[in-house]
């Protein structure tokens, strides 16, 4: 499994690296623009990600916008349905409206509320057929 971890806060990023590093290769982006760039680059190199774990609230380009651009890029390449990268959004407990937007408008597959729980993340990976 190849994962892109997108998170601007250091300890949250570290936790995701620890949890996801067990399942294969991962790369890291610290804002939405880097996420979009990394996603496109991986595509161009014909080594796309299997999973993007995307924090919603980040400076500059946020997670919502990054998700929209990732889905738009896939659509442009003719990728639909099962071929789309799996995206887990990560959100703060006090921010439910963002989750709704990510699901209904952005095309996220799943979401997790911070603080990230090892078992919950594993369960989501199973639900998405990634492990």
């Amino acid at each position: 499994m190849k994962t892109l971890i997108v998170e601007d806060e250091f300890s949250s990023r570290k936790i995701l690296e620890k949890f996801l590093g067990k399942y294969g290769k991962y790369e890291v982006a610290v804002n939405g623009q880097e996420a979009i760039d990394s996603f496109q680059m991986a595509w161009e190199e014909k080594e796309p990600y299997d999973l993007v774990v995307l924090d919603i609230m980040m400076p500059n380009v946020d997670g919502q916008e990054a998700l929209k651009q990732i889905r738009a890029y896939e659509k442009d390449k003719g990728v639909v349905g099962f071929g789309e990268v799996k995206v887990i959004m990560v959100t703060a407990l006090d921010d439910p409206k963002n989750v709704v937007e990510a699901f209904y408008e952005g095309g996220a597959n799943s979401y997790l509320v911070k603080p990230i729980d090892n078992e919950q993340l594993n369960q989501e990976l199973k639900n998405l057929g990634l492990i």
Partner: protein
Amino acid sequence: MVDNQQIFEREQVIQRLGDEEVFKEIISVFLETCPQYMIQLEEAIQAKELSDAQKAVHKLKGAASNVGSDLVRDNALSVEQAIEKQDYTSIFSRFSDLKENTQALQDILVQELEKNQNKT
């Protein structure tokens, strides 16, 4: 003054992180980054740069939640909400609570690491 249990839920954090090694590492990361977030936040508040203050306190909120401190997370959330309302009176008073409890949390986490080092 709050007691240690109120400020930091040790067993819950270890369970959530899966093992004690990750737990120690995350505490170390927190102790490195937390003072930076607090300095950024305090400077931004004093300069009335609320967008920068918001970014710093949001990071602190996430970091506090990662190390299992609901108290500091809630304090950070209060500051964040006061910033959104641009309510300076609340920003200053809530920041003062946040600062005090963040310092208490850091002291507890330093002890936690020392305790762990003595064990090994």
